[in-house]
Structures are given as C-alpha cells and as structure tokens.
C-alpha cells in the first residue's frame, strides 16, 4: 500500500469511528471498541509513516514529493480548492504525538466516563448515550486535528482549525446542564472567533498576494523571490505603510493566539476545564492548543521574512509564559493549576517561535504533550478517586492511597519543571538558550523575553510542587466517606498514566540530538541566516548537554521553586495564609486574573452590547427592518398579488400574450 492511501486511512479511521459511535445505535462497549480501534489504526499507521518519512527519510508520495493532492474540491475563477496532504517530518511528528495521546485518552475515558450518567439529571435526553457521544466527539476531534496537521493548503488548514474549535466547543459544554459549562464553552467559542477572524484575514492576505492557497506554491514563491514580497507594502490606515508579510504573519498569529491561548486571548482556556478531564488532557493540553504553535512552525518560511512579526510573537509569548504562571499559584482547583501551567508552557513554545527556534518549539510541544497529558490524566485519576471533587483544599496525603498516580504525577511534575534528564529539561533549556541567543543577536523584545522565561522556570516549579504537596502530602482534609472509598482507579486509568510517564522521562534525551541539532526538520522548517541557535557543531552528546545545563541558572531556579514549595506547603502550611493577607491587593489581582475577564465583560461584551443595541435600534429596526426589509417585502408582496391576476386562466389570453411577446421580439430584433 502506498503512503497516499495510508495517509487517507489515518485521517478517515477516526472519522469512521466517530460516525459509528455518534450515529449508529451502538452499545457502550461497541462504541468504545470502535473508536479506540479507529484511533489505534491511525496511531499504528502514523508510526509507520513516521518511520518511513522521518527515520528512513523516504519521500512519502510519488516522484519524491512531500505533498499530494487527493481531490479537487472546487475550482472557480482560476482558484482551486483542494484536499491534500503534506507529509514531512514536521507532520509526522505531530501525527504520532496526536494519535498516541489520543489513543491513551480514549482508553482512559473508559474509566473516567464509566459513571457518567450520574452527571445528568434523570429526565435529561442528553444523559442518554452520553458515553457513546463522548467517544464520538473525541474521535471526531482526532480526525479534525489530523486534517489540520496533514493539510497541504490553507483551506484545509482552516477546515481543521474550525473543526477542532467546534469539537472543543462541544466537549467543553459536554455537561450542558451545568450553567458554568455552557458559559465556558460559549466563552471558548467567542474568544476563538476573535482569533479565527484574524486567521481568516491572514489567509485572505495570502490568497491576495500569492494567488494560491497551496503551501508548496507559496513557499517556493517565497524561497525564489523573497524580495518581491518583503518589499511590498499595504496601506491599512491611510498614511501608514505596512509590510505585507508582517501583516499576514501577525494576522495568522492572531489565529494562533486564539487557539494556543496567548495573552490576551487566553481567557477561555482555564474555563474550559469545565469539560470532562480526558478532553482537558487531549485538547486543552496536548493537541488542539498546540495547533497555533504547529501552524507558525509550518509557516516558518513566511515568518522568517518578518522580524517585526517574530518580535511580536516573542513578546506575547513571554508575557503569557510568566504572567499565566503567577495565576497558577493561587488556584485551588487541581485542574485549573494544570490549566495555567499549560498556558505558561504554551507561552514558552511561542517564545521559541519568536526566537526562530521552531525546532525547539516543536520539541517542547512534543515533550509537553506527553507530560501534560500525564499530569492531566493523573489529576483526573485523583478526581475519580475523590468522587469528582476537584478542590485541593479537600485533599492531602493521597500518596498512600494512590501510589501509581503519586509516582506518575511526580514524574510529570519533574518533567514539567525541567528536572535534569527528564523530557522537559531538554526542551525548556533549549528554548531558554534560543532566547538568549536571540537576545544577544539584538532582536527587539528578546531580552525581556529572556528574563521572563527565566523567572517562569521558578514560578513553574513553585506552583507545580505546591499542587503536588497539597494533594499528595500533608494532612488529609477529605471527609470520612471519601477516605473510606479512596483507592486507585482501574487499569484503564492507570495504564495510560504509566504509558505516558515513560516518554515523559526519556523522549527528551532521545529526540534532543536530531530535533534540535540535527537536520530533522530540514525541508519542513526554514530558518533565516544567523537565526539558528543550535548549530550542529555545538552538540557534544546528551550527557554534556545535561552537564552544561546543570551550570545554568534554570536548574537552580527550579530547585529554588521546589524548595520554596516544600517550605510553604509541605512544612509551614500557615505561612501561605499570612502572605495572602499581607499582600491582599496582589492576591486580589491574581484572583481576578489581572481583571482580564472583568475587562472583557465590561469593555468588549458590554461595549459591543451597547453598540449592538444602538445599531439595532437605529439601523436594524428603522432602516433595515422598517424600510428595506419590510418595505421591500411589502412591495414585493403587493406586486405579487397584482401580478397573479395576469394569470387569468383564459386560453385566449395566454395565446395572446405569446403573440405579443413574439411581436415585441420582431420589432425589437428584426427592425431594432
């Protein structure tokens, strides 16, 4: 079987599963078997494609091509909209990551959603088959994500982009009987719309200046005649000239800001924790939120031509990385802590993009996918054990009840904070190094970003271990009933934890050499002259990288963070309360998430509501409804009533009308 067919099967297998579980009257077992097999097939084939393309270095499609157009959907006015695949090292990395995490999450879901009917009121229609529906959604998500990463054109990218957005909306609001869930999914959807608007404009820009939506055509145009595009400017406001590339890059990045939850479009991600935990792991940690990172990496030939856009990205990422970390410090909901850590880590990846270290960003994306999925699933495991209680103040001392969860969480946390040798260590150090290089190179905003990501390391360690100590150590705060039933959940929950813990430890060391220093992404990612922070000559083996890292500040900052966390939450548990009262204004600021939500509510939501009601009163009700719509409807209706009398039913009049028509034609055309 050739890789064209394989690629198609990879994409369609989850879709088939989703359709079967969603539309056919399957039993619960049948539903999860179908979907899991679908995703499993996708994973195995992805691994095979990965082996072929990335390890062996074969070009996937005929004639050594990396892109393949499967079907021309439509062609109009010289434009053709196609469905096709671009499979290179970047794609295969994403494919394997996405399908593997998704597969794990599918299995885990069996345990997590076992008692889902308790989450619904008895008379609710939504409660019926909610189990099957959930499986259908997550498989559909896998399909959408694969469409997104495997696309070879902007249209399909946009399709995948919107489809993951849609599924995310469905899943956040999965328990749609809860008002908070409905609010959260609406919020996620609306915030993403803002990003998508920019994204769509960016695509329109590409279409306008390149005349095509095909990646390959755009990239080769950029490679062959870069000057033609970098010198082009566009006048957005009168009197201001903008470089077209910069405008397109920033517009596309606005889309990425929405999906990858960068400040200020980050507000939806913490709220999205209203959804069931498996999807928090799958969508809001490992895959969908990385779509923005992936997209920017994919567009590296474009971004490399605009340093302005890169700096913009760098600053946004740095702000996200640091300030979202602070928010993680004061959360009580176990999932929200992980959510804020996700935001902060996404900030790191974005910083790497801004520093042109696309390889490092993808590297961190991959390691993060494993350990963040692990942390989420571990949090989910705790939640299951605690009978769906999520407040960390009611936990404590869970170590002895949940040993597997405890150890896997520890691994995940260590990977997250960058403990030497663990996956996160390599990727995070690489990012910090890249920013350092960019800062030395004099890129605007890079110095700020450097200090921000350094401080972020400390914060990360602090909130990660705060959570760890609060949950697993210290006094047991849960009630008697819960304590009695505390036990490790079934194997479907613990196995994925173990399966994810292994790559969380080792993947960094394995992938370090090829992804950062090697030519792993050659052909897939483009870097401008002098922007490569990881020349192959600098690499002297994994061990020396670790040793070198031990001498750099991040390790000590992380250690300090862990130490402080131990001191505050493991030993002197009274101190946090005192700090809280001493810096109540600061606590308030963090509690209100820098007033971002409040600001959005008052300014954007309230403002647009006012504007809307004004336009509605004046524009809609009076001009459009009153005059144009109703007016024209009335006149059309009037005409209609009059004209129907022409149809008299009399044969002679019909014939006469024909003759008159003939006469008219004769006079007009023969003698006209």
């Amino acid at each position: 079987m050739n890789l064209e067919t394989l690629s198609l099967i990879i994409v369609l297998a989850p879709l088939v599963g989703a359709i079967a579980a969603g539309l056919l009257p399957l039993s619960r077992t049948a539903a999860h078997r179908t979907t899991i097999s679908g995703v499993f097939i996708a994973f195995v084939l992805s691994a095979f494609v990965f082996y072929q393309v990335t390890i062996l270095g074969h070009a996937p499609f005929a004639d050594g091509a990396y892109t393949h157009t499967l079907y021309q959907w439509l062609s109009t006015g010289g434009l053709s909209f196609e469905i096709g695949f671009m499979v290179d090292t970047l794609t295969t990395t994403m494919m394997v990551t996405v399908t593997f995490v998704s597969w794990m999450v599918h299995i885990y879901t069996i345990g997590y959603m076992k008692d889902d009917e308790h989450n619904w009121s008895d008379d609710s229609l939504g409660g019926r088959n909610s189990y099957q529906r959930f499986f259908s959604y997550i498989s559909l998500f896998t399909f959408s994500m694969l469409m997104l990463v495997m696309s070879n054109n902007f249209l399909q990218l946009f399709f995948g982009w919107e489809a993951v957005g849609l599924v995310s909306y469905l899943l956040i609001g999965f328990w749609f009987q809860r008002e908070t869930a409905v609010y959260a999914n609406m919020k996620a959807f609306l915030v993403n719309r803002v990003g998508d608007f920019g994204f769509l404009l960016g695509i329109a820009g590409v279409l306008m200046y390149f005349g095509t939506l095909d990646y390959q055509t755009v990239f080769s145009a950029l490679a062959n005649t870069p000057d033609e595009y970098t010198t082009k400017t566009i006048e957005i406001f009168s009197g201001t000239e903008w470089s077209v590339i910069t405008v397109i890059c920033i517009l596309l990045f606005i889309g990425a800001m929405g999906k990858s939850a960068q400040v200020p479009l980050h507000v939806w991600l913490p709220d999205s924790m209203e959804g069931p935990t498996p999807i928090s792991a799958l969508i809001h940690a490992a895959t969908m939120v990385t779509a923005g990172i992936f997209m920017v990496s994919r567009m590296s030939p474009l971004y490399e031509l605009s340093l302005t856009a890169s700096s913009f990205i760098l600053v946004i990422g740095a702000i996200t990385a640091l300030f979202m970390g602070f928010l993680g410090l004061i959360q009580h909901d176990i999932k929200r802590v992980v959510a804020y850590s996700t935001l902060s880590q996404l900030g790191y990846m974005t910083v790497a993009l801004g520093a042109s270290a696309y390889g490092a960003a993808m590297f961190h994306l991959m390691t993060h996918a494993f350990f963040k999925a692990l942390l989420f699933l571990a949090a989910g495991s705790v939640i299951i054990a605690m009978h769906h209680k999520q407040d960390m103040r009611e936990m404590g001392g869970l170590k002895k009840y949940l040993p597997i969860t405890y150890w896997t969480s520890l691994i995940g946390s260590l990977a997250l904070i960058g403990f030497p040798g663990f996956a996160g260590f390599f990727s995070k150090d690489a990012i910090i190094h890249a920013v350092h290089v960019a800062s030395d190179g004099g890129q605007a905003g890079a110095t700020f970003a450097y200090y921000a990501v350094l401080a972020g390391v400390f914060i990360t360690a602090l909130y990660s271990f705060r959570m760890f100590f609060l949950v697993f150590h210290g006094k047991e705060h849960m009630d008697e009933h819960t304590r009695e039933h505390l036990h490790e959940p079934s194997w479907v929950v613990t196995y994925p934890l173990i399966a994810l813990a292994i790559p969380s430890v080792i993947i960094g060391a394995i992938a370090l050499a090829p992804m950062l220093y090697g030519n792993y992404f050659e052909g897939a990612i483009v870097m401008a002259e002098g922007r490569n922070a990881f020349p192959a000559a600098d690499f002297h083996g994994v061990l020396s990288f670790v040793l070198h890292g031990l001498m750099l500040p991040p390790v000590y900052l992380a250690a300090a963070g862990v130490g402080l966390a131990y001191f505050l939450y493991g030993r002197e548990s009274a101190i946090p309360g005192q700090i809280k009262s001493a810096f109540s204004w600061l606590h308030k600021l963090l509690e209100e998430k820098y007033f971002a939500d409040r600001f959005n509510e008052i300014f954007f939501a309230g403002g647009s509501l006012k504007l809307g009601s004004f336009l509605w009163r004046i524009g809609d009700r009076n001009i459009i409804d009153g005059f144009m719509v109703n007016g024209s409807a009335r006149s059309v209706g009037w005409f209609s009533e009059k004209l129907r009398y022409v149809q008299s039913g009399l044969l002679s009049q019909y014939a006469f009308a024909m003759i008159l028509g003939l006469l008219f034609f004769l006079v007009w055309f023969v003698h006209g």
Partner: protein
Amino acid sequence: MTAALNHLHLFVPEIFVASMICIILLVDAYVPKAINALTHQLSQATVIGAALLTLLNQPTETTLLLHNTFVSDSLSVTLKMAMYVLMFGVFVYSRSYLQQRGLLKGEYYVLALCALLGMMVLASAAHFLSLYMGLELMALSIYALVALNRDSAQSSEAAMKYFILGALASGLLLYGISMIYGATGTLELKAVSDVIAEGKAESKLLLLGITFIMVGLAFKLGVVPFHMWVPDIYQGSPTAITLLIASVPKIAGFAMLMRLLVDGMSGLHSTWGDMLIILAVLSMALGNIVAIAQTNIKRMLAYSTISHMGFLSLGMLVGTNEGYAAALFYTLVYALMSLGGFGMIILLSRSGFEAENIEDFKGLNKRSPWYAFMMLILMLSMAGVPPMLGFWAKLAVISQIVNAHMYVLAVMAVLFSVIGMYYYLRIIKYMYFDAPAENSPEIEANTDMRWTLSLNALAVLGLGLFPHTLLQLCQNSL
C-alpha cells in the same frame, strides 16, 4: 447505403427504447394483470437497459449518422444519462400515487417512454426535422399524460390548454425553421451553422427565423412571457405527471437550446443572447415574485420553475463553452431538485388526498423528522443556500455572467434569488415551526420510494459537498 449504416451502434439506445415501447404495449394488452408488476418492471428495465447501452456505446468523437440527422457526442451521452436517471426516479415515485387513483395503466408507461424517446431524439438532434419530430414526440406524449385523469375537469382543461398553446408554439417554431431554410437552403444544423458563418445568408431572413424559433423554444422552456401554460399545467395535472413534466423535459429543453442555438446558430449569438437576457430577467422577476403569493405548492413550484429557467438562460447567453457548462450544470441540478420536490408532494399525498397546499407541510418535522429534513435539503438547495448543490449551480452561472462583465445581470440574478428565498424558506418554516394539522396521518410509502427519495435528497446534499465531480462532468461534456 453502407455509409448511412456506419456507427449505427451509437443509435442502439433509441432502437432499444422504441422496441421496448412496442413490447410493453403488447405485454400490457395480452398478459393479464400485468399492471402491478410486469409493466412497471419492464419500463424500469427499459430505462436501465438504455442507460447501459448508452454507456457501452459512447462515441469517441462527435459523430453524425443517419444522413446527418442524428448526432452522437459527449453532450448527448450526458444528457441521455441524466434523462434515464430522472425517468427512473419518476417511475418509482409515481407508481403508488397513480395506483391509488386508478391511473396506473399500461398506457402511462408507454406514453412516458415515448416522451423519453422524444427527448432522446432531441438530445441527439442534428437536423431541424429530427429535432422537430423529437419535440413533437415528447410533447404529444405529455399532452396525453396530462389528460390521463380524464374524468377530472381540471386535468382535461390543463391538457387542452397545453395542447393548443403547444400547437401554437410548434407552429411558430416551424415557421421560424422554414425561414432559416429559406435563408440557408439546408436543414442540417451543422450546415446551417456553416452557411451563417460564411455570411452567405440573408440576415433579415435569419433574424426573422431566429425570432420565431426563439419563441418556440421559450414556450417549451416556459420563460416569460411564454410561460402562461406552466402554472396551470403544473397545478392541473395529476402530481405524478407534474413530476414528469417538471424534471426530465428540462433536460430536453436544454438539449434544444444547445442544438438549435449553439450547434445551429452560434453565428447569431449576439441576437439570441440579447433575447435570452430579456427572457431571463423577466422570468426571474416574475417567477420569484408571483411564487410568493401562491398557496398551492404545485403552483408555487411552477413559478419557481419559471425563475429557474430564467437562471438557466443566463448561463446560455454568455455564449462560451464555460457558460454552456454552467447552464448544463444548472439544468441537471434543477431537474434533480425538482424531482425530489415533487416526489415529496407525492409522498405526503395518499388516496383521496393531494398534499397540494403549502399548509399540508405544516409540522412535518413532528410527523416525520427524516422527510422534513429531506425537504429541508431540497428547499435550501432550490433557494441556493450553501452547501447544497443548488448553491453551486447558481454560483457557476453567476460567475460566468461576471466573467462576461455583465454585472447588472449578475446583481439582478442575486437579487431575485434573494426574493425567491422567501417562499422556499416559508415551507421550511411551516415544516419546523408550525404545529401539524389535526388528524394528519402517518406517511405511507413503499420501500423503494422511501429509499429513492432519501437518496435523491441526500444526493443534493452530498454532491453539494463535493460539487467538483458533477461540474467537471458538465465541462467535459462540452
């Protein structure tokens, strides 16, 4: 003589259909109680067989045979295949309707197949005479079908009107043809086209001829002001016959346009193009506006047909191959939607009750969500809402108009489409937002009808999601 028999395999489908007509006549007369099964199955077999024969005997290039009276090219193959598909649907939908009303006679099938034969002749016409004979073969069969329910005064009146007006139109058409003959000295379409291209023909005479021919064509298409018969005949005929009139002959109408105007008189494009502009604008305006005032759904769909035929003319008048392809696409799409729409009316009616009023669709969603959804697809498609097939058809035509820089026409087309949305959406509103009338019974239909109708509507949706295949087919046919 042998030269006349060359390539005769291309003519096999017509021979097959004609032979089957005779066989069915005999079977119907001599095999007792053949009505229920045998005649129906034989007719379906005829359609399927003709489709297979057409597919097997495709021309490699445009081939003229039978002394240049018959042409076989990719266009004729496409058109005929579309006719078979539609005819198959018509037979499936009509059966139980006619049976319940005691109209399911063998003659129905014979006449319908004769009409099909006439349309096939039209699709392959290379000569004014064969074109005219095909037209009459189709028309005469349909006149008789309209009057099939001979005890109904309404049907008889409709048939009478149709017959007389049709005869008038045929007369005008013939008169036009005689003028063209006078001007060019030939009746072969290809030769006529050559003479016109050489500029040998007297132009006034040609203009006179094309004007009369255009009137005859316009009548057959049912465009304003030659549309008067459409609403009366649509409403007056038994719904199963309306279904037939509203679907397959539209393909034949397009075939006539192509053969007469493009094959025969492309040299006069400037004239007939202008005529089509007038016809198109009037049709879209009148059709869409008057449809709003209708309460009878068959009548409403009749006016909708008028507007759609106007739209189709827009594609023709551009005068390029892309334009003709767009018009062909539009025709195929419209015929498919129309088939489904009338199929729904038949589905809702039962013995002693015609679901003729728009109000009969009230609350259909409560009674049968699936068919309400099917109707939703069809109505949205007719209104031209993406991603339904109808949207792409409209888009194809409008983009051709825009390419030809006829912006005013394009704006008008869009404007009238918007007006037209009103009455399609009204049906959706009735189906989904109104309560069903009391004691509305369950929908009863045969399995084959249910499946075919669902398939029909889903095709409108499915092809709408992947419009390129059909569009490509249309482009390749020209």
